[in-house]
């Protein structure tokens, strides 16, 4: 973990507690997780106790205190996707990756999460891999999508 990265992010925001969530979002996006060292730095710089940061990182779903894989899989389980069979898609993805939501595989290749609605309900069921949306999925198709990722 490069201290410079964290500093660059912290410089973008006012140095007070209200910037906490925005800063953490950027660190999460950059490093794919929130290492303790990073949180200690943020705590010092923004003047927020580490215990409050702990509260926040466990309250909001966007944050991960463990490293994530190279490829983030988000299977949407919003109501529209649920009604259209997102459960089956999730089953297939769990099968292919060997993961359950919240987990990352041994090689840090894939991390699997469910997400509650990304606003593409017309395309349901939807799966997002590394920010790329894959819609109108049939269970077999979701298998094929994942084959393309190294």
């Amino acid at each position, binding site marked *: 973990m490069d201290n410079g990265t964290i500093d660059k992010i912290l410089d973008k925001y006012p140095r007070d507690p209200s910037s906490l969530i925005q800063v953490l979002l950027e660190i999460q996006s950059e490093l794919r997780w929130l290492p303790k060292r990073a949180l200690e730095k943020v705590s010092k710089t923004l003047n927020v106790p580490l215990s409050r940061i702990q509260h926040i990182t466990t309250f909001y779903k966007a944050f991960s205190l463990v490293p994530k894989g190279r490829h983030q899989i988000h299977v949407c389980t919003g109501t529209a996707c649920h009604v259209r069979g997102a459960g089956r898609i999730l089953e297939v993805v769990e099968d292919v990756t060997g993961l359950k939501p919240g987990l990352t595989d041994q090689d840090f290749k894939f991390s699997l999460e469910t997400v509650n609605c990304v*606003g593409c309900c017309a395309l349901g069921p939807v799966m997002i891999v590394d920010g790329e949306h894959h819609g109108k999925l049939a269970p077999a198709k979701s298998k094929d999508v994942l084959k393309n990722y190294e």
Partner: protein
Amino acid sequence: MPRINSPAELEEFRQDIISKRGPNKPCIAVCTGTGCLALGAAKVVSPFKEEIKKQGLETKVDVRETGCPGFCERGPLTVIYPEEICYLQVQPGDAKEIVSQTIVAKKVIDRLLYVDPTTGAKTVHESEIPFYRKQKRLLIGNNIKVDPKSIDDYLAVGGYAALVKALFHQTPEQVIEMVKQSKLRGRGGAGFPTGLKWEFARKSQNETKYVIVNADEGDPGAFMDRAVLEGNPFSVLEGLTIGAYAMGAHEGYVYVRQEYPLAVENVTRAIKKAEEHGFLGKNILGSGFDFTAKVHRGAGAFVCGEETALLASLEGKPGEPRARPPYPAVQGLNGKPSNINNVETWATIPLILNKGPEQFASIGTEGSKGTKIFSLVGKVNNTGLVEVPMGITLRDIIYELGGGVPGGKKFKAVQTGGPSGGCIPAQYLDTEVDFDELPKVGAIMGSGGMIVMDEDTCMVDVAKYFLTFLSTESCGKCSPCREGIRQMLKILTRISEGKGKESDIGLLMELAESTRDASLCALGGTAPNSVLSTLKYFRHEYEDHILHKRCPAGVCVELYKAKCINACPIGQDVPGYLSLVAEGRYEEAVSLIYQTNPLPGVCGRVCTHPCTDVCLRAETDEPVNITKIKRFAVDMAKRRGYTVKLKKGEPKEEKIAVIGGGPGGLAAAYSLALMGYRPTIFEELPELGGMLRYGIPAYRLPRDVLDQEIDFLMRVGVEVKTNTRVGRDITLEQLQKDYDAMFVAVGAHKSLPMRIAGEDLPGVKGGAEYLREVELGTAANPGKRVAVIGGGDVAMDISRSCRRMGAEVTILYRRERKDMPASKEEISDALAEGIQLKELVAPKSIRKTDTGLVLEMELCELKDFDRSGRRRPVPIAGAVVTQEYDTIFSAIGQGSDLMFAGSIETKGDTIAVDRHRMVTNLPGVFAGGDAVIGPARVVDALSHGKKAAVEIDRYLAKKAGREPHAESLEKIQVTMTLPKEVIETPKAEIPKLNPAERIKDFAAEVELGFDEETAKKECGRCLRCDVSWLAARDKSMPVAG
């Protein structure tokens, strides 16, 4: 990038932009909202740009990447201006053709146009496409016209004119007055009057005030705000700036959920551009008013959509709501007065100022003014965003705009208002959508999410789904929400796993009430809504799960091993017997089938197979042809001389009467006989069979097959009294005296009247009655010219019977072929036999002439949707045709003849029963089959018969003080392995006699049956969902094939 310093400069700048564009300058607008991007819109934009460049048209043609116009179902969307030609589902390969044909040659490309699914007509212009035309797109209509990255585009469509009005021609109080007069209510869900809320903030005395955009659109299934913020961010900023002026705020925040990265990007860029041009920042447009806005991202917490939680999150804290008062207007962000409004609310403000509040208030209902954007999703054909005036009905939204439910499935409910909302069933589809009407039916409008659900949705699962969602999103601060939701979820989970108790429903209601009344914020306060509304309208589903451990929709996986077994009313072990047949173990297959089905040879020929309709093999290629395998197994076993061995229970003394010798009565009598009783069937006709014999013709169900199967059942120990009609030869009261219990299964054999003049003329007959006469041998020849009015199975049977009697037959149906209730196979078989089908005709009157009967018919067209979810046929004025026939049959449905019923309670023309116990109002008198549920399937009657037998035994056993009969079934060893490999193979179709041969002989069976090789191969297509289910729950089970 000029900074604009006065309204005059703004107008000059605007005119400049507009004139440079020219009204006739071609523009290719491609939707690049998140939805279309997911469908590949980015890959469509580049070929357009390349082609334009290649043809040297860069200065002459614009390519615009726009916001989302809402027709997400047909994306990627492209609109060509100035003609406004709309192309749907555009692929990258189409770009070249569109440029050459439409831009250069001004020709329309037919294949990319919208096609009306009913009429087949094509629509060229965007605004004329029915999906758009029936909307009132005041807000979202601009999305396809603007590139969210371009402030010029926003100005070209009139942007920022409202801000000028506010800053330079009105005082803040006047602005608030306008908003009040418009009667705008917040679009986030609570519907609080916006003008009033602004006034509170205005009245709070403080130097520092904040205005905030709530773009934390967390309701799953709702994406209206995404489209507005992503697609037209300047409209939201303009509204926000006007609000800031009105309330006296100089700082604003746009709180966007991080799951909307494109919206975050677009609004951040829009703020920057607005600042550069002088629409934000110091001295806006030279007015002296300062206002800046910042974007703040959410971090994945649904509860942050609640305003006090949002404020906490803005302050960098966990998103936990707090008590109100004090309201944010008094004490908000950082303790300062703050006004939070939803994205759509803010975007509506410029609209109100531009059009004037009276115009805005002229749209909508008394209590809910203006238009609202809804996200119409789920089991609906045209998924997308629709903007409609308040007061439109649910039916219009779902059917006229949404195009109804896909796949021919039945509508079940529409869920509105997100997790805080409720499910509305079909009988309330005419409810007007607004803030006040929907709560009357137990739902809320909420932020605008509308999720359509069909027969394959389980409502217990829906409640469980929402509670699962809310329990993970609950902030945990207050016990009623945190614990209440958790406990309700526990109960629902138990119910969905078959572990429900009768007391659960009462407990759920209690928990629901306390959670609702005691929670701190609306998350907990509205969490019980999904449970309460599904209990209110779908209590029977809860009861099925709890009392019968059954999930009728086939969703709750703990309750069924395979969808086919679950969909079968008698629970046949389909994968079991398919496996046995594949191995050539026909005798065991038949024994297995007989454990639940007493008439398998019959069912194998005539069942309408709900199993095949849900077969998961269809996801790979086609469903397995289950019914015909069943027939094959029975035929093979018979050929080998096999008879099923049955085990009878201890003889029992009680006397039981079964009224009706159709499938319901036969199944009941057989089951009772197996238990050790000796029941008596009373049948008014000369032979047993009911509709099987006196309805279904011999060419579909050979009489030797029927006789043999019935004979086998009766030999178990049933006494039969044919030619005996209850009510004529013996009274119900006498039977009640002589017998200890009774099962009434008289079916539905009376044709419903058509209610037209002349229907009582000789030669006009009821279809069901005629089929009976044909079987009895008393039917008069129908003549050469026959008309059959109706579209169900009876209509098909009548038509095909008459055809075999030498007639030319025409079926007259008032809707279209796809709407006919008859099985698809029956319809194609009928047409193959040379029977004519006239669609969209309704009978008007019949009169007699010397040469026959003249039927007057009205030609119909399909209009709005009715309660059945199909378009209503309406006679076209003056379009009347006449045709002469020898015989006219009415086959529009059947009812029961309940003249004998005496003191048995009836409901309309069916017998009323407690559906769990199959018992009528008279103790010891049970009923089932068509007489209770109306004309249904053979397999429904079989199910009722068996159930009734169990209930009768339970009733008699209790009376006698003994234990009810315990069914002991032979354990048949079925090989439990998964198929080795799955290769795409179509379904095996059953060979049939050729149509010309068929109609020569009434008794010639049309279906010929499978040969052994085909049958075994077809069985091999079964995916053995039962094995996967068991293996998933028992890891030690070996399943390799």
